[in-house]
């Protein structure tokens, strides 16, 4: 299947963070299989995220109360630093598909920790297996200090079981809510996970607090360990189906037929949970490239922000503003609302977030001003007044957000394709109202036209 430009752009949006004009030139004339294989190829080599944690390498016992407090404060701040480090990687990275899948699992295995090392390690773990084997990923995540602490498996002991991890591993990580397990299965599985704990920042199994007696879980009986439960969960076809449904929602973003889901899911199951098999199938399927799929999804705040930052090579002189924007748009990386992750879709949109989303391009690309003007015959005084007001707005936004796009680079990228600007920036079909507004515009420059397009509700879709 040879792809159209719109379909190629679609692939780069859904499998990455938006197309670059050069992608399109290279991609033209190629088939979906060729392009997807190329995306996998460029995702083979990748970088982990890194942060200097030496300041936390101290013996806590030797610290005074004051110093301990200071250290906790530093740790809290460092999670925001980490957020910015990952944002930078999302923006700069070449292996976009791997990073996109890492982003998917950041939501699937949602957790919060005030410990920067736990956050980094889990994030890198997700990246390592993002296109690998889901079973291995699940096992390693389950044993990660981050998840053990977050879902209270430290408190899960033979004499006082804690069901938190056992419940969530079924409800959120494998089978999905109310999909073929009972409260008894949860209780029994919790017993199997006893003894999984953390010592000096590493996973450790403590046989003394492990309940080694017999358990019955999803119809199987034995002296199961935590590893056995993970294996039992992976033996359920439902686990493959649940993951498939979530990835279909992630990449396709609209309901598809049960038959299509079943085909994807069976393939995934018989590949023994090879994520690359499933992702490749989805990204080369005809339903992925169907007209109804293109532009049907609402961008997550991260996709919106990273997409814009990538394309316009925005330099944030005030990095805190990035955190602030994530917060206002309800997707602060490393701070999912709860273990169920972000709600997504229409839940991103309310009056406040929508107005900020529509303003975002002008805030990041032109200090808060959309240079849109209907041809008017306002007297000169009015125009002068407007100009003054505009200067005041820009000075204020420059102070607060201080984001600097590279317009020269953008113009160079778009050279020879200026007339395709609308179809390059907008995936959804323009509404009549949007079309009219664009037609009424007197803007000539590439910059002003780009900001107008990015300020349309349609730019929220991909």
């Amino acid at each position: 299947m040879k792809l159209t430009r719109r379909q190629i752009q679609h692939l780069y949006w859904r499998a990455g963070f938006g197309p670059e004009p050069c992608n399109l030139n290279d991609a033209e004339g190629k088939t979906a299989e060729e392009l997807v294989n190329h995306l996998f190829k460029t995702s083979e080599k990748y970088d982990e995220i890194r942060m200097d944690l030496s300041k936390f390498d101290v013996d806590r016992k030797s610290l005074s109360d004051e110093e301990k407090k200071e250290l906790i404060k530093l740790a809290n701040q460092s999670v925001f630093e980490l957020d910015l480090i990952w944002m930078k990687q999302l923006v700069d990275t070449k292996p976009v598909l791997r990073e996109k899948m890492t982003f998917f699992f950041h939501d699937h295995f949602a957790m919060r920790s005030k410990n920067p090392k736990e956050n980094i390690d889990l994030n890198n773990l997700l990246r390592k297996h993002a296109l690998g084997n889901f079973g291995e990923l699940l096992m390693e995540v389950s044993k990660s200090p981050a998840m053990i602490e977050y879902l209270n498996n430290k408190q899960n002991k033979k004499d006082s079981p804690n069901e938190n991890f056992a419940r969530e591993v079924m409800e959120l990580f494998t089978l999905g809510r109310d999909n073929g397990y009972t409260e008894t299965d949860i209780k029994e599985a919790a017993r199997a996970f006893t003894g999984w704990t953390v010592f000096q920042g590493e996973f450790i199994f403590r046989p003394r607090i492990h309940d080694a007696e017999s358990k019955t879980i999803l119809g199987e009986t034995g002296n199961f360990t935590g590893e056995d439960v993970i294996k039992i969960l992976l033996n359920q076809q439902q686990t493959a189906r649940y993951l498939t449904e979530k990835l279909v929602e992630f990449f396709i973003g609209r309901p598809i037929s049960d038959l299509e889901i079943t085909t994807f899911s069976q393939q995934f199951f018989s590949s023994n949970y090879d994520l690359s098999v499933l992702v490749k199938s989805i990204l080369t399927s005809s339903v992925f490239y169907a007209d109804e799929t293109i532009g049907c999804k609402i961008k997550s705040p991260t996709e919106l922000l990273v997409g814009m930052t990538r394309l316009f090579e925005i330099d944030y002189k005030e990095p805190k503003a990035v955190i602030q924007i994530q917060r206002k748009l309800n997707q602060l990386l490393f701070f999912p609302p709860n273990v169920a992750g972000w709600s997504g879709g229409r839940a991103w949109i309310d009056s406040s977030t929508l107005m900020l989303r529509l303003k975002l391009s002008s805030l990041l690309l032109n200090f808060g001003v959309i240079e849109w003007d209907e041809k008017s015959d306002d007297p000169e005084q009015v125009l002068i007044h407007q100009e003054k007001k505009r200067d005041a707005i820009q000075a204020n936004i420059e102070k607060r957000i201080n984001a600097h796009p590279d317009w020269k680079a953008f113009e160079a990228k778009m050279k020879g394709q200026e007339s395709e600007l609308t179809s390059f920036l907008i995936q959804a079909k323009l509404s009549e109202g949007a079309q009219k507004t664009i037609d009424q515009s007197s803007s000539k420059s590439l910059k002003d036209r780009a900001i107008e397009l990015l300020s349309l509700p349609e730019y929220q879709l991909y």
Partner: protein
Amino acid sequence: MQKSAFASGMLLVPSFLNGMEFISLDQLSGFRNVIVIQLSGGNDGLNTIVPFGNDIYHKLRPQIGKNEKDIFKLNDQLGLNGACKQLKELYDKGEMTIINNVGYPNPNRSHFRSTDIWQTASASEEYLKTGWIGRYLDANCQNPYEAIEHDSSLSLVMKGNEKKGIAVTDPMQLFQSTREKYFKSIVDNTQANLLNEDNQGYLYKTMLETYSSAEYIFERAKIYDSKHIYPTTPFGKNLKGIADMIVSGLKTRMYYTSIGGFDTHVNQVASQDRLLSIYSEGIGALVEDLKKNDRFKDTLILTFSEFGRRAGENGSRGTDHGSANNVFVMGGSLKQAGIINASPNLSNLDDNGDIRFETDFRSVYATILNNWLGVNDAQVLNHNFERMQFV
């Protein structure tokens, strides 16, 4: 020719914006509303409604416990924190209900998780994606402005499946942000009746609703600008904003606001007393203002916190995260005022040393939804919860 939604600046009401008309001031009487206030961070209920007559309390809290001289006595056992002068006046007039031991089974002691539970009205193990006020909007309302949050962003509690409330701090600012010429042009060019059910239609619908709600709130809230003196705290300003909207006659059923800082792990007494006095002074001003305008009889104020705090003090003159807590309801038309259930049982704490819950918080919501607003509570809360008698 199709009429555009906002032809020539004149508002033609699209179908989903029916009911945009203002209520005239004489119709206003009897339009009931609810103000929900969250004390964020986990307010220490035991030092707010103090069981000063209970020896166990003093044993649990040798350093931070309050004595008879620090409180307003409510009865032989319980007293109100001395910072809450205005609340005591309400209590004496029969305009305040105190419900003890409110919570839910398997309490969660994380701020954000327990806040989610209170806001979504879910069970402890259940993750709901909509808030209870949002679902109230879904089932009963037309417009975003029927539930207003006094904040710069909208909390989960205000988000339903189909409808969402609107966050407002300054009606003028909200109005101006929507009046950017470019956006105005898009709205003017958009035909509301052609909007699809897909995500694109949803974005446009939200844009149009925001546009008209911002105008409605701005135009309407101008009517009354209270000259009453409110505390200059941010919380006081929020309450003034809400009072202005109520007295101006906005057709808003639910207002939501919060005051933070109650996470008092260290040196609790001074900081909690300061916060409680900000809260109490704000409430005092609000109630006086509403009374002066004859709206207090139509208003119900619900105050909660995501959890109470550990019964025993910790080693830093503070308290750690706990579970069940007291909830306050205030209003000019209460059916049951005062302390309406048993004091916390300090001799039967749970394994964590926390107060056990006796009243499910969703019973409080159910009572407000059904008895006060006259709507189907089970439809909003997804279950039937026992209703109470306070309104």
